[in-house]
């Protein structure tokens, strides 16, 4: 717990909170100031907007401790504020609210528009208010109310203050308090202990029984190596060697009856995931085709992934050359999958697969070149590290295979 000190609606307040407490929860749960509403908790809807150091701030994505010693004004603190009083009358006159849920945030943002914009057009007001969503009114009354208050105030000779009286640089709420050092390293206060690898019998966490499964996204790629077909075919029999080419992947042991436990670690910017699971291996000597189907679960994000690597090995155009046709597909489910910007996931997947193919080629070429020991390979998928280490053009080529979600 940490002590949070704020100046809320003109009074100094202090409470013990967990650092994860965002400002809105601090006000609502600790101070019972429930006029600040939570509509999305990811900074889009604007219902939680209030004033921090005098300027509108999203209280759902601002942590209370980050505002230590700041001035916070909630809707309850604007009862006697002149602009807000005028806005209240105008909102009522113009029917600028229905269910009232967006209203406190709407009023705080409207107050900022009235304060800062000298002579805005209707369009300017709409753009300025676009960070506050209302599901009831169609915004007609809200915009008219703001127009009315601005016209009235300018008519009374009250000019706008474009900077909203802020002169200090940096995020609202910052710069008021002294340094805080972290509590000494200690076990996490979470009720939930983090996943212990030993606890999770990975093989039972997921299932591969569904034979009709088809990947959401599939990439195909072919390359040729200067090495006899039999050798390349045998290489793919070594599941450990293949897995080693997949950045971040590792196996818990040798396959038993075509099953093997393993995991794949992925880090993308601030997000890291560790999918633990199993893989099933099938091979057909007659056609020289095989599949590795894996499924794993990331406990942190409650997300799962399934992947398929299909390979076909056939003679190349020249003697002692082998052509490898790869089909790589995956499906992601759970929290990590539930976003519309699939392009970002595609970008990451594309980068992983590009490295996998590059590693396979390196490894096979190395073997075919008669190299000693193991070639240097990319081992953990850290997207940033990878990008620094790889030729950018290679990634660009890789991205061109990208197929959209079918």
């Amino acid at each position, binding site marked *: 717990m940490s002590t949070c000190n704020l100046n809320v609606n003109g009074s100094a307040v202090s409470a013990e909170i967990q650092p994860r407490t965002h400002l809105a929860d601090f006000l609502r749960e600790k101070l019972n100031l*429930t006029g600040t509403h939570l509509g999305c908790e990811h900074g889009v809807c604007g219902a939680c907007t209030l004033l921090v150091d005098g300027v509108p701030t999203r209280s759902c994505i601002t942590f209370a401790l980050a505002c230590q010693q700041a001035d916070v004004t909630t809707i309850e603190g604007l009862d006697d504020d002149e602009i807000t009083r005028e806005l209240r009358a105008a909102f009522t006159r113009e029917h600028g609210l229905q269910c009232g849920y967006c209203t406190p945030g709407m009023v705080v943002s409207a107050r900022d528009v009235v304060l800062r914009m000298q002579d805005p057009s209707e369009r300017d007001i709409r753009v300025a208010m676009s960070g506050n969503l209302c599901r009831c009114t169609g*915004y007609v009354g809200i915009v008219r109310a703001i127009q009315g208050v601005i016209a009235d105030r300018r008519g009374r000779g009250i000019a706008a203050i474009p900077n909203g009286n802020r002169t200090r640089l940096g995020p609202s709420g910052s710069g008021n308090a002294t340094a805080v050092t972290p509590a000494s390293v200690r076990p996490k206060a979470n009720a939930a202990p983090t996943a212990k690898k030993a606890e*999770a019998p990975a093989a039972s*966490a997921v299932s591969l029984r569904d034979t009709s499964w088809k990947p959401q996204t599939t990439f195909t790629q072919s390359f040729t190596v200067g090495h006899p077909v039999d050798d390349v075919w045998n290489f793919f029999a070594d599941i450990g060697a293949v897995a080693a080419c997949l950045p971040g992947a590792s196996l818990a042991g040798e396959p038993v009856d075509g099953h093997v436990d393993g995991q794949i670690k992925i880090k993308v910017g601030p997000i890291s995931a560790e999918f633990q699971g199993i893989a099933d291996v099938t091979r057909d000597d007659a056609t020289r085709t095989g599949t590795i189907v894996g499924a794993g679960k990331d406990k942190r994000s409650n997300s799962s992934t399934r992947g398929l690597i299909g390979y076909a090995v056939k003679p190349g155009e020249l003697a002692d050359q082998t052509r490898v046709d790869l089909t790589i597909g995956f499906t992601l*489910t*759970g929290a990590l999958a*539930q976003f519309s910007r699939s392009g970002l996931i595609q970008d990451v997947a594309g980068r992983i697969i590009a490295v996998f193919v590059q590693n396979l080629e390196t490894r096979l070429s190395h073997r075919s070149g008669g190299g000693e020991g193991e070639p240097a390979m990319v081992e953990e998928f850290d997207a940033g590290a990878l990008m620094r280490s790889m030729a950018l053009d290679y990634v660009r080529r890789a991205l061109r295979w990208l197929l959209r*979600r079918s």
Partner: protein
Amino acid sequence: MARQGVGASVPRKEDDRFLRGRGEYVGDIRLPGMRDVAFVRSPLAHARIRDIRIPPHLRSSVFIASDIAADTRPIRAVSGLPGFKPSDQPILAFEKVRQVGELIAMCVADTRAEAEDIAAAVEVDFEELPAVHDMLLARRPDSALVHEEWGDNVFLETFVDINMEAAYDAPIKITREISTARQSMAPMEGRGTVAVWHKRMDQLVLYTGNQQPHIVRNGLSECLNLEQLKIRIVSPDVGGGFGYKGIVLTEDVCLGWLAMRCGYPVRWIEDRREHLTAGANCREHHYNITVYADRDGKLRGVECEASVDSGAYSSYPFSACLEAAQIASILPGPYDFPSYRCRTWSVSTNKCPILPYRGVARTGVCYAIELMMDAIAHECGLEPYEVRLKNLVRPEQMPFDNITKKHFDSGNYPESLRQALAKIDLAALRARQKKGEPDGRLIGVGLSVYCEQGAHGTSVYAGWGIPMVPGHEQATARMTPDGGLELRIGAHSHGQSMETTLPQVAHEILGIDIARIKLVHGDTEYTPYSTGSWGSRCAVMSGGAVATASRELAKLVKGIGAHLLQTEIENVKLENGAVVGPSNSVKIDEIAHTWYRRPQDLPATVDPRGLEVTIGYKPARDSGTFSYATHIAVVAVDPELGDIELIDYVVVEDGGQLINPMVVDGQIYGGLAQGIGTAMYEEMNFDTSGQPLASTFADYLLPGPTEVPAPKLGHMETLAPYTEFGVKGIGEGGAIAPPGAIGNAVNDALRPLGAQVLHTPMTPRRVLEAIQAAAERRKAKAPELAEGLPA
């Protein structure tokens, strides 16, 4: 005193508390010792549950299906329509999950954050099953099954054929495949529940933001096996409903069970991710539709196969079939034609259930039929409005029973169209289209006419056979000893402004200042039974009930007043809050004071009902009111980026007598914004494994201030023949017509390119793809010709 009665644009009584942040929504309720609940939800759309592992030290904070099985029953919302297959929605999943977000375990802790920590520590082993993610594929014989015991994935199939074959000789036959995306209703406040066992009252008190508190009590009583005397439902301030809050939730049942078991208050507040990925959806329709017409644009018949993606479970109380079955009965819209055939399927998939959203099936139906009316116009070389005028039901036909036996009560539909057209200059717009825009954008004009059956009652709902059939709507009117008036209704106001409009109704009859009239609602303990707020019914039904109760109360007031004025009741009238006799008058305050505080002044013959009345109301006919409107959209389409700008928008509507025109305008503006969301922005996508692809408002786009224009609004007031004051239900109408009007406008703009968009939302991507497809078609047909046309 300014006019306050029916027809006055009185400012709202509820505004002040909301503007000061003093509303009380379910998330604002604070009870001593209250603890928070978070749920373990299914990350998969379709899977068997093999095992649930709870860390031993957390076992007492986690509840799973086996813990609650003995005390709860699944939610079961049947329909009486023949062939309906019921689904049991488990309170907590066991054996199988059928949608992402389905409840698996309930975790309780001192704070929500800690409850989420516990939920994260619970591990569930699944055996993933193929997901039924597409309602059209779901009807194929090889599809996986959501409910294995059914043998297929169809909740209900309906079929109606009225003389269809008579239309087959029509010279014009046009077929289109049209669809509307799945949506989330997305009120700004999500769901939430606070539950506590009240020891003194020996009663479960459940606060839940809901449109239908009495219906929740019915459902909860069934699922918790608890008599209704032991359940009180409170619906406090509610941050928007739109249909999303017209459902009994598994979460409600869980919290009720937990409060009864643990002895302390518990709460669950739905967060936006839960709302978007686990909560109910709406709107997903698919139409294969054919129209038959004569060369002069006269509609001969409509033939349609319609599917609705109803999701995994039948929701309480509206059931999984309401939407699709409604399509069959309302697809004809405001048009008069002789031949009709419609087959519908309510399809079960591995998605969350769908609920009736503002406009229910009408938005999809209107989109489909209005696109077809424009197609006929194009085929006949007529202006779209000319085809409408040829086919709209005419005022002299009123009241009119249409092809599906809908009883249109009144109205002048062609006149709404003419008035709407008068608000744009069509000839100038056509000239501007021909000339082209300097910025290369394409101008289009589109219109859409709809009718909205509202406040339909017993006879209609008894036919559906769902768990909820509205009867008489009741209201209580009760004077306080100091002359105030309490109105009590079982419906709920959450943006509809009933705290203002129902006092206006009472004021109209009793003359009491609305400042002294208070609406009590949202509490089963204090209000008469009602099926709640849905179906554009409250102005008609609650308004009618308040009017009826007020009239009864007026008689009682006049009785006491006459006595005090020492005259007979026939000689007095109510005027400006006083009973006026031949020579003097007495204020209502004094009458109330006498009844409550000075009974010694009353004669023995005084009416013993005193100053309190509870009475029911039903319109003279309960087949519903028919409001209607014409919407016209003028758009500019950017053919390079696919952007659509609404450059003008017109609405001319007829809601009968308006109780408060300002409030009605607000309903239309708000409905329009939601209709624009349907038309252009909102889409709940799923991938082929049934994963919802929107978990934030950055993925699921709601229209903001720059996406919604201020429309030109016109009112007609054709009084409804069967209701108090001639009021018609109008709350949902604004959301019905926009996709049709905007869709027609976009296609009008794209016509020079040969492109059309038949699916909502009309995103830039869909617009560009339509243009691209048209260009390819042109190239394939006549490569040399295509050269000369704009790309």
